[in-house]
Every structure is written in C-alpha cells, then in structure tokens.
C-alpha cells in the first residue's frame, strides 16, 4: 500500500518524477483502494469493534518519524509489507522474499532496542 503515497503526489506536484505514466495511470484506483481500506476497517469497528475509537500508546514522534522513514524506505524498495510481503512473495519473486527478511530483521532490532532502553509500549 505504499505506492498510493507516491501516486497521490501527482495530483499536487508538477515534478516530472510524480508525473510519470505509471503514477498518472494508477493514481485513481490506488486512492480508491485506500478508501476501501478505510471503509473496511470502519465496517469492522461498527460491527465487531470496541465502543471507543481505537488509540495507541505509541508517542506521536515515533508515529511521525517511523512513518517518514518507512515511507522513504518502502518507496525506495518498491514495496512494503503488502507489496513485497504479500503481492511480491505470492508472485514468487526472490527479491521480495529477501526484502521481507530484511525489513523483518531491522524491525526486530529497532523494536527490541527501543524496548531495551525502556521505551516499550
């Protein structure tokens, strides 16, 4: 689901890198897919979810910084947990399997380092 963040920039940025056919031709359905995710999760919340809205104890700086690093990394890698982890691996792409092993490893290390310095949530 990381590509939607690049393709959506094509609506507001005139930079050629965002105006490539691969983003212009897919930006509409990528946003529709993202909208579907919002609706799907909302349906779960209304039917099976808790009464209160979901929230997290992860501090805002970790959400913002983590999002920025993950966004940069996923776009450089050409995929994230769904792109490489589900679509790429299910397409039997070796680089996707190696990508998953790589982000699992750095994810483990990062989360455990934070927990070790007392920042577990």
């Amino acid at each position, binding site marked *: 689901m990381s590509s939607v963040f690049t393709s959506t920039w094509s609506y507001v940025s005139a930079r050629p890198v965002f105006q490539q056919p691969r983003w212009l031709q897919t930006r509409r359905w990528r946003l529709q897919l993202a909208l579907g995710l919002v609706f*799907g999760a909302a349906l779960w919340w209304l039917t099976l979810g808790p009464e209160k809205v979901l929230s997290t104890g992860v501090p805002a700086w970790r959400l913002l910084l983590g999002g920025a690093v*993950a966004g940069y*990394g996923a*776009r*450089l890698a*050409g995929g994230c947990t769904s792109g490489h982890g*589900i679509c790429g691996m*299910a397409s039997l792409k070796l680089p996707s399997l190696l990508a998953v092993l790589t982000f699992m490893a750095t994810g483990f*290390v990062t989360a455990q380092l934070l927990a070790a310095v007392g920042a577990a949530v």
Partner: protein
Amino acid sequence: MTRSGDLQDSLIVMVSGGLFGFGLALSGMIRPEVVLSFLQFHDWGLMLVMGGAFTVALVAYQVFPRVRGAPLVTSGFESHTAQMAPETFVGSALFGVGWGLSGVCPGSAIAGLGAGNVQMLWVLLGLAAGAWLQGALAADASANGAPREG
C-alpha cells in the same frame, strides 16, 4: 472504456480494499501495540496473518491466470515489479526501522484511520513526506545520469 465500466471497476477496487481493511482490523494488525509485540517476539499473530494472506494470494496468482483470460479490472494480469537491486534492500532495511519505531505499516495506517484512530494521521503525514523525499531524491539521481526505478 464506458462510464458504467469505470463505475464497476471502482466498485471492484473499493470492495477489494474493503476486504483488506476489514481483515487488517479484525486480525488486530491496525493496533501498533500488537505489531510491536510481534517485533519483540511476544506475539506471533502477525506471522499467521501474513502467512494466511500470502497463501491465499499465492493460490489466486497461480490459479486465476490459468483459468481466466483477464482479471476483473484492467485487461491483463501483471505481477509485482520486485527488483534484485541495492535499492530494494537499502529501502527495505529503512522500512523495517520505521516499522519498528511506529508499529505501523502503510496499509495499517490507512485502515487504522477507518477505525477512528486519528493518531494514524501522524503516520500518514510521515509516509507522505517520506514518499515525496524518495521521489525528489530519485529524480535528482536520474538527472545526474543514473536512471532508475522511481
């Protein structure tokens, strides 16, 4: 393509996204605490969710192109454009660091918003900024004579 075809495609795409979002929410993957618990080896649920999704997608990708001429939307089947290139691994390593910091990945940030978690706006802001920076830096690199995948 006719306008009714456009509408039908949009519906198929949104229902697909809806299934994905519902599944992410139902499985608890939109809760950063659950993801961070996996990354600290306390809760292996994420492995089941990802393994389950992988298995269903694997069967679909291997079977449907053989029994159907075309997918429900667009004219032909395509597969993920994974590259055996340094960018894939440097990018994935960084993605893991960001994932371990926040406990959120792009899909769970978008779905989390649907379950009313407005804190996910922090993640979405970060993801958008990161994607912009990657595009800007990739464009600079290709302008310097090193064309590569954006």
